[in-house]
C-alpha cells in the first residue's frame, strides 16, 4: 500500500470505534427526534434533510476535535520519515469523505424510520416546519474544517469546538460589518464566492501550515498556533481589506463610477458648482429593496473636483437646503421660485410660509398662521400653493389673482386644471355625459362653461400672464399648440424653433416646481416621436425653444435638470450619471462631468 492509502487506513483505524459508534448513535438520535417533529411536515420532506444536518453536526463535533492534536504529541506517526503533510491530507480526506456520508446516512435513517413508524405515533412540535436551507449543512461541513484547524492548536479537544466558533465569530466580524453596513452582499455573486472561498480555504491552508510546519518540532501545545495564527491573519487581511473597501465604497461613492447614479441635484448660484445626491442602484438590502440613503456631494464643473458635503454618508439633507452652505438658502428658493404673481413678483414657499419679494427682501405673502403649513397642491394639473392645518378638512388654495386663500372643495369627478383671472378652470369628468370644461368663480360661487375652449382642447398649463397653453386634440395623437387668452378667447399659435407651428404629441411643464431660467422663462418638455426634449417657453414670442442636444424617452424622470447658468443654457444629468450643458435653440451639447 502506498503512503496515502496507509495514512487513510491509519485514520480509519484511529477513528473506527467512533465512526462505528456514530452508525448506531445517528439512528437513535433520529428515533428520538422524530417524536418531536410534526407528522405532516416529516411526511413530506422535512425530516430527512434535518437528520442529515444533525448527522453532519454530530460527526463534525466528535471526529474533528481530536483529529490533528492526536498526532502532535510524542507519537509514532510523527517520528516517521517524511513530513506531516501525508497525515494531514489523510485527515482532511477522512473528514471530506465521512461528513457527506454522514449526511446521507442521517437522511437515510430518517427515511427508514419514517417508513417503519406510523405517523400517528409522532408527536408534533414546530421545529420541522422550518425550512432547512442547504447552506446550513454546508456551513456545518465547512465548520468542520475550522474545528480541524483549531484542533492543531489545542491539545484539549473539548474546547476545540467553542474555540473554533469564537475564532470564526471574530473573523466573521468584518464580513458582518460589511454586510450590515452595505446590506446587499447576497446579490453580489463575486463577493459571496470570495468570502466562501476564504471560509473554506483559510482553515485548510492555516490548518495544513499549523500542522505540517508548526508541528514539525516538538514543543508546547501552542507551537503550531505560532505558525498558523500569523498565516491566518495574513489570509484574513484581504477579507478585512475587502470589508473596509466595501464599507468605504459604500459610504464614499465615486461619482465617476459607472455604477453610481446621480439623483436629485441642482446648480449653484455661481453657475459652476452642482450639488447632487449619489446613489448606488446596484445595491440591495437583504429584502431586495434599493437603499434610499443617498450621499450628497458637490461637484465643481470647471475643475471636475468633487467632495462630499454634510458628512456624506448618513446625511439627512434634502438637497435644495444644502445651499445654505454656499449661499443664502432663501435666495436660492427665490431664484427657482415657481410662481409669478400678476404684478410679476415671484412667490415661493419657504419655512412653512408663502413668501414674495418685498422692497427690503422677502416678505410673507400671506400672514403666517402657526397652526398651518404651506405645501404644493398636486391634484389635477395645477401646482398651486396650498395651506393646510387645523384638521385635515382645512385645506385652502392661494388664488394669486384674487390674492386670497380659498377653501378647496374636493370633488371626485372634477379636476382643477388652472387658476385663471376669470375663475378656476375645472375638467368635469363625465361618466354618463361627455366630459366638459367648467369655469368656477370662487367669489360668486357660480359655474359657467368657458366659451373659449372646445371639448377637443386639452389644457396643459397656465402661463404666468393668465393665459393657458392648449393642445387642440384630446386624444394621445398629434396636436397643435395654442396659447389661449381666457378673457377674450384669442388663440395664439405656439410655435417651435425651426419647426413652425408643427403638431406635437404633447407638452408638459416640468414636474419640479423650480424650473425657470434666470429671467423667469418656464422650462417645459416637448413629447414627440423621437422622445422628449427640454424646451424654454418664450411667452412673448409664442415660441418653444428646444435644447436639441439631448432627447430621451423618459426625460423628466431619469435625467434631472440641475439648473440654468443663463437663459440660453441648461445643465442637466443625462443617463443618471453624466452632466452635460445644452443650449436652447441648437443641438449643442457639452459634456461636463465625469471628465
Amino acid at each position: 500500500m502506498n503512503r496515502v492509502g496507509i495514512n487513510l487506513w491509519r485514520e480509519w483505524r484511529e477513528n473506527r470505534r467512533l465512526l462505528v459508534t456514530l452508525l448506531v448513535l445517528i439512528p437513535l438520535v433520529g428515533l428520538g427526534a422524530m417524536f418531536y417533529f410534526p407528522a405532516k411536515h416529516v411526511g413530506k420532506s422535512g425530516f430527512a434533510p434535518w437528520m442529515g444536518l444533525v448527522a453532519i453536526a454530530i460527526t463534525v463535533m466528535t471526529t474533528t476535535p481530536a483529529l490533528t492534536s492526536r498526532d502532535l504529541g510524542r507519537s509514532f506517526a510523527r517520528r516517521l520519515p517524511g513530513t506531516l503533510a501525508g497525515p494531514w491530507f489523510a485527515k482532511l480526506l477522512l473528514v471530506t469523505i465521512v461528513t457527506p456520508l454522514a449526511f446521507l446516512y442521517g437522511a437515510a435513517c430518517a427515511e427508514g424510520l419514517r417508513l417503519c413508524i406510523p405517523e400517528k405515533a409522532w408527536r408534533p412540535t414546530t421545529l420541522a416546519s422550518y425550512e432547512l436551507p442547504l447552506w446550513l449543512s454546508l456551513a456545518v461541513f465547512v465548520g468542520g474544517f475550522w474545528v480541524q484547524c483549531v484542533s492543531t492548536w489545542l491539545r484539549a479537544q473539548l474546547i476545540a469546538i467553542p474555540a473554533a466558533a469564537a475564532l470564526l465569530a471574530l473573523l466573521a466580524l468584518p464580513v458582518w460589518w460589511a454586510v450590515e453596513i452595505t446590506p446587499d452582499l447576497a446579490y453580489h455573486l463575486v463577493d459571496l464566492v470570495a468570502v466562501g472561498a476564504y471560509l473554506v480555504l483559510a482553515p485548510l491552508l492555516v490548518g495544513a501550515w499549523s500542522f505540517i510546519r508548526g508541528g514539525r518540532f516538538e514543543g508546547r501545545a501552542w507551537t503550531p498556533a505560532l505558525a498558523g495564527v500569523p498565516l491566518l491573519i495574513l489570509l484574513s487581511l484581504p477579507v478585512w481589506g475587502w470589508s473596509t473597501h466595501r464599507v468605504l465604497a459604500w459610504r464614499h461613492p465615486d461619482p465617476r463610477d459607472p455604477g453610481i447614479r446621480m439623483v436629485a441635484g441642482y446648480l449653484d448660484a455661481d453657475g459652476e458648482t452642482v450639488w447632487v445626491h449619489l446613489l448606488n442602484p446596484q445595491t440591495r438590502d437583504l429584502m431586495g429593496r434599493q437603499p434610499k440613503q443617498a450621499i450628497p456631494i458637490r461637484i465643481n464643473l470647471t475643475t471636475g473636483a468633487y467632495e462630499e458635503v454634510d458628512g456624506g454618508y448618513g446625511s439627512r439633507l434634502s438637497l435644495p437646503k444644502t445651499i445654505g452652505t454656499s449661499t443664502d438658502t432663501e435666495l436660492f428658493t427665490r431664484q427657482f421660485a415657481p410662481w409669478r404673481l400678476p404684478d410679476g413678483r415671484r412667490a415661493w414657499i419657504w419655512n412653512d410660509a408663502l413668501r414674495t419679494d418685498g422692497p427690503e427682501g422677502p416678505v410673507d405673502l400671506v400672514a403666517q398662521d402657526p397652526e398651518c403649513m404651506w405645501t404644493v397642491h398636486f391634484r389635477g394639473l395645477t401646482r398651486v400653493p396650498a395651506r393646510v392645518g387645523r384638521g385635515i378638512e382645512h385645506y385652502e388654495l392661494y388664488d394669486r389673482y384674487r390674492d386670497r386663500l380659498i377653501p378647496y372643495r374636493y370633488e371626485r369627478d372634477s379636476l382643477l386644471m388652472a387658476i385663471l383671472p376669470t375663475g378656476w378652470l375645472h375638467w368635469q369628468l363625465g361618466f354618463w355625459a361627455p366630459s366638459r370644461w367648467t369655469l368656477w368663480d370662487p367669489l360668486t360661487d357660480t359655474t359657467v362653461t368657458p366659451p373659449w375652449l372646445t371639448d377637443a382642447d386639452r389644457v396643459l398649463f397656465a402661463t404666468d400672464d393668465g393665459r393657458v397653453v392648449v393642445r387642440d386634440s384630446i386624444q394621445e395623437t398629434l396636436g397643435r399648440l395654442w396659447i389661449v387668452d381666457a378673457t377674450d378667447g384669442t388663440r395664439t399659435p405656439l410655435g417651435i424653433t425651426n419647426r413652425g407651428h408643427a403638431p406635437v404629441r404633447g407638452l408638459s411643464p416640468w414636474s419640479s416646481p423650480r424650473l425657470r431660467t434666470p429671467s423667469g422663462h418656464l422650462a417645459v418638455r416637448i413629447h414627440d416621436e423621437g422622445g422628449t426634449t427640454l424646451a424654454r417657453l418664450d411667452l412673448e414670442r409664442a415660441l418653444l425653444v428646444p435644447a436639441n442636444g439631448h432627447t430621451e424617452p423618459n426625460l423628466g424622470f431619469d435625467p434631472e435638470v440641475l439648473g440654468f447658468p443663463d437663459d440660453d443654457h441648461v445643465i442637466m444629468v443625462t443617463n443618471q450619471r453624466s452632466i452635460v450643458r445644452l443650449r436652447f435653440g441648437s443641438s449643442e451639447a457639452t459634456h461636463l462631468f465625469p471628465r
Partner: protein
Amino acid sequence: MSEAILRCENVVKRFRRQTVLDGTDLDVQPGEVTVLLGPNGVGKSTLLRCAMGLVRPDGGSIRIAGIDPARNPGHAREKIGYVPDVPDVSAWMTLRDVYRICAAWYPSWDAAEASRLADVLAIPDRTPIATQSRGQGMKAMLAAALAIRPPLLLLDEPFAGLDPIAREDVLRGIIGELRDADRAVLCTTHDLDVASRIADRVAIMADGRIARHGTFEDVIERAPESARDVSRLRDAYVDAVDPQEVLS
C-alpha cells in the same frame, strides 16, 4: 577513525529558561555501541530527539550521515532506528500494523528481517502492542526499529521501568542484533550494569555537556582504581556527575 554516523557539535537546547543541552559534543561511529549515561533529566532524551529532528536545537549542529535532521528530518529519520522509552504507537496498533506503516515509510525496510525479528523476539503480531507487557512493547519497538536496517540505532532508556526478567529479555534482544555490519548504536540509560555489558564507548552527560567520553576502558581507567567494572564505571560516573545530582 571512520566518518561518524552521528555528529553533535556544541548542541544547545533550552526549554523556557532552563538550558537542557549546553554545548553538547558527541560523535557516534559506525560499528560501535555508545552508551550515554546521565542522571534523569540531564538531556539524554532531548539529544536523541534532536537527532531525530523532533526537537530543534537552539544552537550547534547535528548531522546524521551528513544530514541536518532539523532541516531534513525525513531523510535523517530514514537512517535511524528509534526506540522510545515508552511504546508510542496508537492503542490499536499491532506489530503487523506498525510493520505495515514502517514498510511504507522506510525505503530500507526488510520484510524478511522483520518477520525473523518477530520470531526471534517472540512478539505476537496480532495483539495490540498497548495491551502487551511493557517488555513485549519495547521488543516490538525494537523489532520495528531494527527491521529498517538502520545505520544508526537510537535507544532511549530501553530498560527504564522494566521488571528484571523483561529487562533481560529486552537486553538479549538488543545484544542479539548489535553485531550488524556497521550499525552504530546510541543507547541512553542510567543502568550501569547494562552499560558495562554493552558499551564499546561510554559518554557521561552532566550539566548539559558530555563530561566523559571514550572507550569503555578509557572511561573506567580514569576512575579511581577499583577492581570491578561496574564499580569502576560507577566511580567514573559519580566523578563526572555532581554527586548531589545523583543522590537526588
